[in-house]
C-alpha cells in the first residue's frame, strides 16, 4: 500500500478537527502546530464581511462630511414612482393634461422607459415601464390645481378616462377624477371654503387606497415616524380619509371601497439614514424587496414591501450625479 503524502495526512487531521465540536483531537506530532493554526482559522473573518463593513463605514464617513442634502435636489421626502405599462404615453398625457415638465428620461434598448422624472407644479413624479421584476402598479394621486374644470377637460382631451366629473364636495374641495392611459387615478382638486387641504400640501400628494387603512397608518408611524395630522373615520374605525406627514411631505390614506378599489403605491422615500429606516421598516413588519446599496445615480437605497402592498424605496442621497 503506498504511503500517503503529507498533504493527505494533514487533511485527515483537519477533517477530524473540523468534525469535532470542541477542542481539536490530537494530531500526529508533525502536524500539531498546523492543526492548531487550522483550528484558529475556523474563526477567520469572512472576506466579504470585511469588505462590506468597509464600504458601509466609507459611506457613513462620506455622509458625515457630505455637503449634499439627504434629499436629492428638487425632490421632497416622498415622491410617487409610477410603474406602468406605456410610460411614454403617461408622460405625454401628463404633459398635455397637467403641463408636466419632463426632467429626465432613460430609455432602455427595447424602447421602454427604464426611468423618467417629471415635474408637475411644485412636485416631482417618477415613472418607469413595468417589467417582470417590477410589474405595473397603478397608483392614485391627488393633484392640487387652480382650475379643476379646465384641467379635467384637458385630461380627457389628452386621452384620460373620466372617473367622475368635477363636483363641489362637502369636504371643502371641488374635484374630478381621471384615469390616465397607464391606469393611474388622478384626483384633480382645488380647495373650497373650509377645506381639508393642509396649508403646506403640494401639487402632488400620493393617495393610498388601502385594505386595512387604520393598520397601514400604524405601520407608517412605526416604520417611518409618520405623524398623523388628520383622520375622518366611522364610529367602527373605518378610515375615510387621513393625512400623514412624513418629513416635509403629506400622504393621504383611506380605506378601499366600492369605486375606490385598493390601490397601493410605489413610493420613493428620502430619509437621513436609509439603513436605519430599512431596519425599522422590517421591524414594523415590512418584507425586504432589496437590501440597502449604493446606486450610481447617487442614492443609497433599499426596498421594502409593506403588508398592504405598498412598495417603499427608502433612500439617502449621498452624492450629486450629473446625468
Amino acid at each position, binding site marked *: 500500500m503506498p504511503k500517503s503524502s503529507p498533504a493527505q495526512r494533514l487533511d485527515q487531521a483537519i477533517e477530524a478537527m473540523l468534525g469535532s465540536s470542541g477542542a481539536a483531537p490530537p494530531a500526529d506530532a508533525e502536524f500539531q502546530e498546523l492543526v492548531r493554526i487550522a483550528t484558529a482559522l475556523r*474563526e477567520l473573518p469572512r472576506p466579504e464581511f470585511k469588505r462590506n*463593513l468597509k464600504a458601509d*463605514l466609507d459611506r457613513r464617513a462620506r455622509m458625515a462630511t457630505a455637503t449634499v442634502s439627504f434629499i436629492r435636489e428638487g425632490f421632497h421626502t416622498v415622491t410617487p414612482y409610477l410603474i406602468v405599462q406605456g410610460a411614454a404615453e403617461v408622460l405625454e398625457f401628463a404633459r398635455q393634461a397637467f403641463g408636466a415638465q419632463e426632467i429626465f428620461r432613460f430609455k432602455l434598448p427595447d424602447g421602454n422607459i427604464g426611468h423618467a422624472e417629471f415635474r408637475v407644479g411644485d412636485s416631482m413624479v417618477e415613472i418607469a415601464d413595468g417589467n417582470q421584476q417590477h410589474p405595473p402598479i397603478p397608483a392614485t394621486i391627488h393633484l392640487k390645481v387652480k382650475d379643476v374644470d379646465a384641467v379635467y377637460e384637458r385630461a380627457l382631451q389628452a386621452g384620460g378616462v373620466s372617473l367622475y366629473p368635477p363636483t363641489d364636495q362637502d369636504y371643502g374641495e371641488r374635484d374630478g377624477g381621471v384615469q390616465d392611459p397607464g391606469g393611474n387615478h388622478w384626483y384633480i382638486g382645488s380647495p373650497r371654503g373650509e377645506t381639508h387641504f393642509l396649508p403646506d400640501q403640494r401639487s402632488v400628494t400620493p393617495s393610498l387606497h388601502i385594505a386595512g387603512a387604520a393598520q397601514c397608518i400604524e405601520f407608517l408611524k412605526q416604520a417611518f415616524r409618520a405623524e398623523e395630522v388628520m383622520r375622518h373615520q366611522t364610529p367602527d374605525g373605518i378610515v375615510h380619509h387621513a393625512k400623514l406627514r412624513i418629513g416635509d411631505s403629506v400622504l393621504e390614506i383611506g380605506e378601499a371601497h366600492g369605486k375606490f378599489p385598493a390601490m397601493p403605491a410605489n413610493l420613493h422615500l428620502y430619509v437621513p439614514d436609509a439603513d436605519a429606516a430599512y431596519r425599522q421598516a422590517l421591524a414594523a413588519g415590512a418584507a425586504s424587496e432589496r437590501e440597502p446599496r449604493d446606486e450610481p445615480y447617487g442614492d443609497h437605497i433599499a426596498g421594502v414591501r409593506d403588508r398592504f402592498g405598498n412598495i417603499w424605496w427608502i433612500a439617502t442621497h449621498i452624492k450629486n450625479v450629473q446625468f
Partner: protein
Amino acid sequence: MKAQRKDADERLLVEAAQADPARFADLYEEHFERVYAFIAGRVRNRQEAEDLTSQVFQQALENLRRFEWRGVPFSAWLLRIAANAMADRWQQVSREQGDPPPEPPDEAAAEDIERRTLLYQLVDTLPADQRRVVVARFVEQKSISDIARELGRTQGAVKQLQFRALESLRAQARPRPKQDAPGGRRAHA
C-alpha cells in the same frame, strides 16, 4: 525606536481621520483583524461577532473626534469600545437567559488576540488560490471535494494548496510583542 515610529505613524493616521472621516478607512484596515479577533474569541457565533465588530467600528467613526492622543494606542481605545459593546450585549442576554457575565481578559487572552490578529492578517498575504482554499475550507467549512469542484482542480491539488497555505502561515506567524488590551491602560475618550 521602532515602537516610537509606529506610534507616530498611527497618530498621523488618527489625526488625518479626525480631520477627514473618509480617511477612517486606513484605521479600519490597520485594526479590523485585531477587533474581530478580540470579539470572535469571546462570543458564541460568527453572526454575533460580525454584528459587534460592525458596531465597534461604527461607534469609533462616530466618536473619533472625541479620541484624544495621550500616548495610548488607538487599538486600546477600539478594544475598550468592543469590551463595552460585549458587556452591554451580555447584560441584555443575561437578563433574558440568566447567562453569567464574561471573565475579564487576562494576559494569556491578550496574547491569544495578538496571535489571531497576526494569523488573520497573514491570510491576506497568501497567494489567491491558497487564500480561496483557506476561506472555503475553514470559514465556509466546505469539503475538499466541493472545493475541488468549485476551483476546477483535483482533490489532491486542493489538499496541496491547503498544506502549503498552513505551512506558509506557520512560517510567518511569529508572536508580536504584546499590545495594550482592554483592562490595561485606559484610553482617554
